[in-house]
């Protein structure tokens, strides 16, 4: 007796600790996922102000820091200087006495100087890679003159960029209503491999005084503000075909292209920043005002665009500065600047901000790791650069560094839903009807045959199902789509016809059943041939071709295939839960209904089914939960294109497949990495909620049916 009690105790402790361990594991998974997601909710901030005193007075107006913040390049009306930004020593000075105007492009590291005699010098700022004796990398600036050319007359305002892939330079200079455009193309001497630039100059007259000019760094677009009018052009159609025309309402302080060259920011006093992006309107490219920002300055003093992403900074005359992100229209940060009236600059890595006064350099760390993630970009419609309207898009990586990440979870959620819905369309009728059949109409011998088969179904590795679906089922259905659809729709009616014949035939022998079943199976062949013949007659032999001619796109690996394959995996789940629910309905109820004169079918459908319905529903929810997380089949049997439609003939990408596809490629700690964890968390919550709901319904049902 004593040992028995001790045994009970040991077991109860074991069971309890097992349960607690399970809960603990689930909680840890949650905690881990949450921990990985948490950083994206931390807003951008600045921290650790550092001040370096420069040992000479700086007359510079425009500044550049290298990525390690060792050297400061200062450009002013007296020439340029290189300063050791850590020690404050001036490393080198280039005094230019006849300097008339200058421009330093902060993203392509090119410096243009105009002298009094209208000569333009172009300097490349090169970051020469060096290593300390401990092997640590750093860069030293080297300002090298590339070429110079002469303009017909002196200009006051100049802008210029270095084109990518050494294609040369673009330069624009203007004075009053004159605009000079200079294209310096790279020419390489065949023999000496010496590189020269030949400036091709074109000059234009505009109606008003030129205020500012912006050139996209790929050389494609040029925007000009003259008077109160802002216009943008393609480089080839300068001043002729306007891609944007806008009338300013107040003083324009600055405008520039963001990284990627498809978004233009304008700071106008008294307004939040205005951003235009390129959009396809019909077949034309236009700049559209697609973004709304919430805060801005009464009086701006400068604009600084991030070299690494679509962050840009605007500083106000009162010392406040704002950081924005273009894609999702986010205000990242509003903060007082450490220096009141000096303009704000951003470092090449975009991770520090700095201000320079006459004799001091102020740097702060700019923590802004996940600017592209926001509720709007995850779940809202966003008008991305180059598209024709706002949309939900998932496209996490592109070919270039300046690619605009598109992190909408909507196509993935919808893809998940699409997969689940098509799976349920196949699985629910089959599993519920067979559960009904097994629990209400079969004898124990038949049940013993069916149940292991269903259990076997559940034990097939999904990778095999995915493999079969992709390589066998998908081509098979593509070839016989029409027949498949027709038979799928007609089969229930066809079965009904046979059932009718079955009830009408008088005999009671089992040969009737076997004979009818044989006829049924044998007749499927001719039925199939008939559909083939119809397809031949109606669609000239190719239903799939006919579909695509009529605008219905057909992917070989599509929702239909996935529905069949994933449906196959959830049939056992729904079946076993539903069967359980049906068998839990007391037999006495069925008998009671039949004693009132109900037929077996009536009793089953009018009494047993309604009584078990919550259980069936729980099974469906559980199947839903399972289908939501299904990865392997979806991965293999769809094209994994994250498109947003509900056609049965196209593929889709689910959250789970997306994680499988993208996580190996996602850099640790990157935005993509975090968003993938977020989607995993979402998936887990969905699965847990569905499981919880299903179990709750089942428990209630059990309690209710217990008499």
């Amino acid at each position: 007796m004593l040992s028995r009690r001790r045994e009970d105790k040991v077991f109860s402790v074991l069971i309890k600790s097992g349960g607690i361990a399970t809960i603990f594991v689930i909680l840890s998974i949650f905690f881990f996922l949450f921990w990985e997601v948490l950083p994206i909710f931390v807003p951008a901030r600045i921290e650790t102000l550092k001040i370096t005193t420069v040992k000479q007075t700086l007359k510079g107006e425009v500044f550049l820091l290298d990525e390690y913040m060792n050297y400061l390049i200062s450009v002013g009306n007296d020439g340029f200087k290189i300063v050791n930004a850590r020690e404050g020593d001036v490393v080198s000075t280039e005094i230019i006495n006849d300097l008339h105007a200058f421009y330093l492009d902060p993203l392509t590291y090119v410096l243009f100087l105009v002298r009094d005699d209208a000569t333009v010098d172009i300097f490349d700022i090169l970051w020469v890679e060096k290593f300390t004796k401990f092997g640590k990398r750093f860069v030293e600036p080297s300002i090298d003159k590339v070429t110079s050319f002469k303009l017909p007359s002196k200009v006051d305002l100049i802008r210029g960029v270095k084109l990518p892939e050494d294609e040369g330079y673009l330069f624009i200079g203007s004075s009053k209503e004159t605009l000079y455009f200079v294209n310096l193309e790279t020419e390489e001497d065949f023999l000496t491999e010496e590189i020269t630039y030949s400036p091709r100059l074109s000059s234009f007259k505009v109606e008003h005084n030129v205020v500012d000019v912006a050139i996209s760094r790929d050389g494609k677009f040029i925007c000009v503000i003259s008077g109160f009018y802002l216009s943008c052009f393609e480089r080839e159609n300068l001043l002729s075909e306007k891609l944007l025309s806008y009338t300013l309402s107040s003083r324009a302080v600055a405008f520039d292209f963001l990284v990627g060259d498809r978004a233009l920011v304008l700071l106008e006093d008294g307004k939040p920043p205005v951003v235009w992006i390129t959009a396809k309107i019909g077949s034309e490219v236009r700049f559209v005002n697609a973004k709304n920002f919430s805060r801005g300055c009464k009086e701006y003093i400068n604009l600084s665009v991030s070299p690494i992403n679509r962050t840009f900074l605007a500083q106000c005359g009162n010392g406040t500065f704002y950081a924005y992100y273009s894609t999702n229209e986010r205000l990242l940060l509003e903060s007082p600047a450490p220096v009141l009236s000096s303009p704000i600059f951003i470092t090449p890595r975009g991770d520090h901000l700095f201000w320079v006064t006459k004799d001091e350099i102020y740097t702060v760390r700019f923590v802004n790791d996940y600017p592209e993630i926001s509720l709007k970009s995850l779940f809202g419609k966003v008008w991305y650069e180059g598209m024709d309207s706002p949309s939900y898009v998932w496209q996490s990586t592109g070919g270039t560094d300046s690619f605009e990440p598109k992190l909408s979870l909507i196509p993935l959620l919808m893809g998940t839903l699409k997969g689940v819905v098509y799976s349920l369309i196949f699985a629910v009728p089959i599993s519920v009807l067979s559960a009904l059949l097994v629990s209400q109409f079969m004898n124990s011998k038949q049940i013993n045959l069916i149940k292991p088969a269903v259990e076997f179904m559940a034990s097939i590795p999904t990778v095999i199902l995915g493999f079969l679906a992709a390589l066998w089922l998908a081509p098979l259905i593509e070839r016989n789509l029409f027949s498949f659809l027709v038979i799928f729709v007609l089969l229930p009616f066809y079965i009904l016809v046979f059932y009718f014949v079955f009830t009408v035939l008088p005999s009671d022998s089992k040969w009737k059943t076997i004979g009818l079943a044989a006829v049924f199976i044998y007749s499927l062949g001719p039925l199939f041939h008939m559909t083939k013949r119809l397809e031949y007659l109606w669609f000239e032999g190719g239903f799939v071709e006919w579909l695509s001619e009529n605008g219905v796109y057909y992917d070989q690996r599509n929702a239909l295939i996935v529905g069949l394959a994933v449906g196959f995996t959830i049939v056992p789940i729904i079946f076993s839960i539903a069967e359980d629910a049906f068998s839990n309905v007391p037999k006495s109820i069925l008998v009671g209904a039949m004693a009132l004169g109900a037929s077996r079918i009536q009793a089953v459908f009018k009494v047993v089914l309604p009584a078990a319905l919550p259980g069936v529903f729980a099974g469906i929810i559980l199947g839903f939960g399972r289908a939501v997380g299904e990865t392997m089949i979806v991965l293999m049997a769809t094209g994994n294109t994250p498109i947003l439609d509900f056609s049965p003939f196209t593929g889709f990408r689910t959250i789970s497949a997306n994680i499988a596809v993208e996580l190996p490629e996602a850099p640790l700690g990157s935005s993509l990495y975090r968003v993938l964890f977020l989607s995993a968390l979402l998936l887990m919550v969905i699965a847990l909620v569905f499981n919880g709901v299903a179990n709750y319904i089942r428990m209630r049902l059990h309690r209710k049916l217990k008499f």
Partner: protein
Amino acid sequence: MKQKDKVTDPIFEIKDLSFWYGQNKALDSITFDIQKGDITAIIGPSGCGKSTLLRCLNRMNDLIEGVRVEGDILFEGQSIYKKNIDLIMLRKRVGMVFQKSNPFPKSIYENVAFGPRIHGVKNKNILDEIVEKSLRDAALWDEVKDRLHHSALKLSGGQQQRLCIARAIAVDPEVILFDEPCSALDPVASAKIEELMLELKGKYTQVIVTHNMQQASRVSDWTAFLLMGKMIEFGPTEQIFLAPRNKITEEYVTGRFG
């Protein structure tokens, strides 16, 4: 109570009925008649085949696999074991109340309306009427009239059993079969059912299987005593209880059987 000692107006004529569950013979050549409008009790020790006999009367045994019947039962002169008999009609005319109350997991109203509905009554007003009348007949109306649309499973055991009677009445049967209707009820609830049976007498022919001798003697007009599948004695209740012709019957009804 009864003057007659012979069944004069039989609604059921059971003729040489034998019944097998597979190899197991549960009834052995049973013959007797059931008087229309009266209450007939079937008594006998456990396992003697009372329920089996009762279920033969509306062919509920058909639901069990591997059973076999010999002999015949005439219901209103028609054999119910002939081919192509309309079972639905038979069960509509011969209702049944089970030992364990078995209301459907639906509302009280839906429980009572279930029978009429499957027999084709769709009109809401008629259904309302049937439900009320059946519940009144089952002496349940006053207790449930305010909660007709609440779950039937919330009723007490006795109320559930009366609901099952109401449900049987609702299809307007001619016969109601009771299989130990009070075995799960306390004496008060049992008394109510007995009272109800006496009230329903005349409107319906009733057949009751019971282990309770007092109950049988109180409510029934006729009593059949079964033992091991055989009919030992059948006759007016008074005779069976006061002057049984068979020695075993006497031992059984006086409680000395064993």
